[in-house]
């Protein structure tokens, strides 16, 4: 597998051991600086997968697959000539010979070596800790094993009540187990929280149905009476449980360092200097295995900084150095906010403490300030992390605290502004610690033309790690735009000083039924190509009137006005609805006949239906008459509305299908086909997890499961593809429809014009969780209203082409010329592959020359 002849003669050989998050980031950093030109690079990883996102490992239980978590599919390595081997454990380093031995017995020479071996979970040596049905929580394989065991277990227990332990407890709960947490310290999260904070967290977590045993030492694990295990505690009590998960901390993976005689710390960890070099200067160590200044850094951000430092040093840039890292964290554990900043325990000399505790709403906040009250040294937050960003910035940038510093943790009273304007942050303020992006980096990106949060993310990578800085990033970007004089006005246009959402509400509440009435009451001037179609769409969403009604006609963009999509030569395409992509041979024949009769170019679309191109304005009504007589309906390919519900054949035909995706797709398409929305909406329904219908790339994706349907929301293809987020699992038909009603109506009510569901959801404060709380928990108390509105839209559906054909007034607008019969002589077709296509300019000149 691995060639034994080295390429030393050509380029020095750089070997990276460990392909975790940090090892991978190191490769990215090397490539970014052209390292592959200087070194021949080989990566060896023990796990069967290439690097994946361990920080979001738990999402493996909430619908993400290994591919979603993967940080690379290998193409980055391939494209840059980097050799990589998975399932390849290195067992020895021979530093004098500069070679490695692999588990397979193979040898590999190196010139420079990077250890990125991470850490392993610590399992306390309790008697019985190696019994079956005991687990740790670190790799995808661990999670597979836990999932398999949970299938025939009812109770699960986590040993360890730290950050990871609580995350693991959440996972057990999601797997449907009765969950307990056993912590040997007197409180939960002993590292981050003080006693009172730990107590508040305990109450919150118990409310969620997880039992917490703090101050509890497990002595032995033996066979249980009514469960697989019994855990006997030091105080004589015991707990019966089917599954045990150890999460009692991590230990640096320094076995290779010990074996090869590199300096390691007393309690483990490979000692490194500021350039991340170990005691052997051709060997580097980065990430969780590295020990700097006698400290281990169990977070990904410091590991990334080490990766960058080591890569720089290997490429001759010694200006970078690793000098420690901030270990502040904020997390949502089992739905509870927890945050910890700096010196949470108030151990600094002379420090003073402010505490706010509210037993009614279960929140606790503490600030540790310097003796003179000027600087923030640390903080603890439980129950509400909205205070975190501001506090962190005071801490990281040593900004002077305001006079009434305690106001920073007091609940907002009235509308007194609390918190720190992003204006006040110094340019060096770190906004994203995962990717080490400062305020200055963001303002540089904005100056260079990144004019939206999305663009800035793309350029700087900010907010693409743990995601914790997303809200702050948005504030900084908006602030930069403002200071550049880029107006972040939310006015729709010069005619309406309102957002689309405001206008929606005005139209609804004041029962406004026409553009003229709205303009007279709330706008000025005469309207434009921004506000007219936007208001036209809102009127259609709310009242579902016929779009070509006299008072609405002038609002419609050309495609909506003529109920067809204009092509480059001014002709139109015709897309009848083919729900779910299912079509009878008879109807297929009709489509063929119509296309033949009118000489239309015919193509199967990307949305599983058939598009006929090249109809002139005046041909549209006749063509549609034939189609409607044959039982077709408009496909609304022209509208900001439901496009297609893509489907696979599902359980009816497919040997793997677990549910009837075809019927569901057709029903969904028929239900929502009349809805006018801020932008187009696409659905798909797959019959099983093989996902042939690509539901996860749609605004609404539905995938059949053994237990019903999984619902994904807010995905799309197009310019910025985005996978949908898993929204709810194992739904029955009725609940599925109910949730879709609510999501789509909430979107229709609140999104901006031409905003697809993905961008809309990302813009909601609280994102997916907020959307879930509105739709599933009815946080805003509006679900009944949303459903009623959707039902009204469903009940008033009309095929716009059918209505048009019955309306002589409307038909008049399809005349090519008001004063003569002729056709547009500029529309000229030529043949290609036995069908027509628009002639090019040159072809037209030649054809006309011939005729003339």
């Amino acid at each position, binding site marked *: 597998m691995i060639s034994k002849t080295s390429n030393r003669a050509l380029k020095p050989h750089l070997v990276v051991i460990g392909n975790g998050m940090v090892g991978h980031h190191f490769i990215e950093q090397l490539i970014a600086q052209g390292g592959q030109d200087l070194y021949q690079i080989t990566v060896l990883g023990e796990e069967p997968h290439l690097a994946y996102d361990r920080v979001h490992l738990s999402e493996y239980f909430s619908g993400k697959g290994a591919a979603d978590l993967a940080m690379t599919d290998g193409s980055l390595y391939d494209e840059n000539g980097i050799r990589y081997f998975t399932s390849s454990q290195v067992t020895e380093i021979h530093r004098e010979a500069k070679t490695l031995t692999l588990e397979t017995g193979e040898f590999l020479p190196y010139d420079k070596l990077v250890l990125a071996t991470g850490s392993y979970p610590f399992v306390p040596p309790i008697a019985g800790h190696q019994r079956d049905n005991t687990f740790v929580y670190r790799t995808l394989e661990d999670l597979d094993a836990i999932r398999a065991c949970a299938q025939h277990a009812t109770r699960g227990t986590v040993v360890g009540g730290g950050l990871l332990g609580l995350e693991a407890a959440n996972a057990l709960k999601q797997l449907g187990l009765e969950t307990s947490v056993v912590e040997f310290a007197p409180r939960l999260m002993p590292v981050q929280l003080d006693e009172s904070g730990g107590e508040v967290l305990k109450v919150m977590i118990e409310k969620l149905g997880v039992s917490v045993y703090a101050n509890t030492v497990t002595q032995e694990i033996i066979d249980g009476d009514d469960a697989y295990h019994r855990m006997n505690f030091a105080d004589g009590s015991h707990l019966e449980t089917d599954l045990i998960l150890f999460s009692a901390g991590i230990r640096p993976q320094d076995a290779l360092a010990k074996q090869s005689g590199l300096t390691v710390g007393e309690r483990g960890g490979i000692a490194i200097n500021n350039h991340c070099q170990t005691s052997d200067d051709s060997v580097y160590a980065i990430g969780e295995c590295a020990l700097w200044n006698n400290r281990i850094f169990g977070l990904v951000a410091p590991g990334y900084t080490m990766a960058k430092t080591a890569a720089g040093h290997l490429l001759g840039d010694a200006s970078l150095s690793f000098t420690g890292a901030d270990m502040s964290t904020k997390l949502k554990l089992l739905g509870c906010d927890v945050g910890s900043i700096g010196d949470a325990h108030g151990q600094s000399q002379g420090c003073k403490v402010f505490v706010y505790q509210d037993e009614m709403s279960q929140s606790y906040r503490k600030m540790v300030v310097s003796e003179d009250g000027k600087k923030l040294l640390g903080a603890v937050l439980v129950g509400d992390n909205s205070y975190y960003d501001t506090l962190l910035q005071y801490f990281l940038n040593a900004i002077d605290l305001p006079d009434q510093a305690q106001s920073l943790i007091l609940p907002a009273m009235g509308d007194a502004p609390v918190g720190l304007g992003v204006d006040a942050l110094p340019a060096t303020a770190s906004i994203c610690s995962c990717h080490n992006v400062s305020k200055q980096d963001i303002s540089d990106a904005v100056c260079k033309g990144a004019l939206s949060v999305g663009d800035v993310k793309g350029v700087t990578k900010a907010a693409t790690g743990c995601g914790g800085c997303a809200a702050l990033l948005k504030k900084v970007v908006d602030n930069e735009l403002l200071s550049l004089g880029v107006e972040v006005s939310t006015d729709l246009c*010069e*005619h309406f000083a309102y957002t689309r959402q405001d206008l929606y509400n005005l139209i609804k509440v004041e029962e406004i039924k026409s553009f003229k009435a709205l303009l007279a009451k709330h706008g000025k*001037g*005469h*309207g*434009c*190509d921004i506000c*007219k*179609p936007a208001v036209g769409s809102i009127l259609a969403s709310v009242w579902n009137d016929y779009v070509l009604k*006299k008072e609405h*006609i*002038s609002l*419609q*963009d*050309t*495609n909506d*006005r*003529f109920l067809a999509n*204009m092509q*480059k*030569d*001014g002709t139109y395409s015709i897309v009848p609805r083919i729900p779910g992509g299912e079509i009878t041979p008879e109807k297929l024949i009709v489509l063929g006949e119509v296309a033949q009769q009118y000489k239309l170019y015919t193509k199967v679309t990307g949305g599983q239906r058939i598009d006929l191109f090249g109809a002139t*304005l005046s041909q549209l009504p006749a063509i549609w008459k034939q189609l409607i007589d044959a039982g077709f309906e408009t496909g609304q390919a022209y509208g900001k509305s439901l496009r297609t519900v893509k489907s696979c054949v599902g359980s009816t035909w497919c040997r793997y299908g677990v549910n009837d995706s075809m019927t569901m797709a057709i029903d969904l398409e028929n239900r929502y086909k009349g809805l006018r929305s801020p932008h187009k909406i696409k659905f798909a329904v797959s019959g099983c997890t093989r996902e042939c219908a690509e539901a996860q790339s749609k605004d609404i994706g539905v995938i059949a499961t053994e237990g019903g349907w999984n619902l994904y929301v807010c995905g799309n293809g197009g310019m910025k593809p985005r996978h949908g987020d898993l929204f709810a699992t194992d739904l029955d038909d009725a609940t599925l429809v109910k949730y879709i009603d609510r999501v789509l109506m909430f979107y229709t009510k609140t999104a901006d014009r031409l905003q697809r569901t993905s961008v809309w959801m990302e813009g909601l404060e609280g994102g997916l969780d907020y959307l879930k709380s509105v739709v599933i928990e009815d946080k805003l108390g509006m679900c009944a209203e949303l459903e009623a509105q959707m039902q009204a839209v469903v009940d008033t559906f009309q095929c716009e082409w059918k209505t048009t054909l019955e309306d002589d007034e409307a038909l*008049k*607008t399809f*005349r*090519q*010329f*008001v*004063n*003569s019969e*002729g056709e*547009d002589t*500029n529309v000229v077709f030529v043949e290609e592959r036995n069908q027509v296509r628009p002639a090019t*300019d040159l072809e037209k000149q030649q054809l006309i020359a011939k005729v003339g």
Partner: protein
Amino acid sequence: MQWNLICKQSDLVVDAGVAAMVNGKQVALFYVPAAPEQVFAIGNWDPIGKANVLSRGLVTHLQGQWSVASPLYKQHYSLLDGQCVEEDVKVPAWPTKLVDGKVYIRQPD
């Protein structure tokens, strides 16, 4: 230069356009009751999209100026003189009048 009778007022669509054929040339006619001119006539040919489509664009009123947005690539053309707002191109424009429910335009023949 003379007034040509093109069509009836009832052939027009309020606040939108229709196309007419005048001496072998395609003309886009817009009926805008709120404007003092009431009816505008400009060429139907979109010089950027290269198709006869301007009559099918949206009528807009921006900073006091009446224009039509091309349905193909959305540039605005002034209804008064045919000047494109975004680019340095121009389409022809003709005087119009509306008398006794009849629409006339004045065009050199």
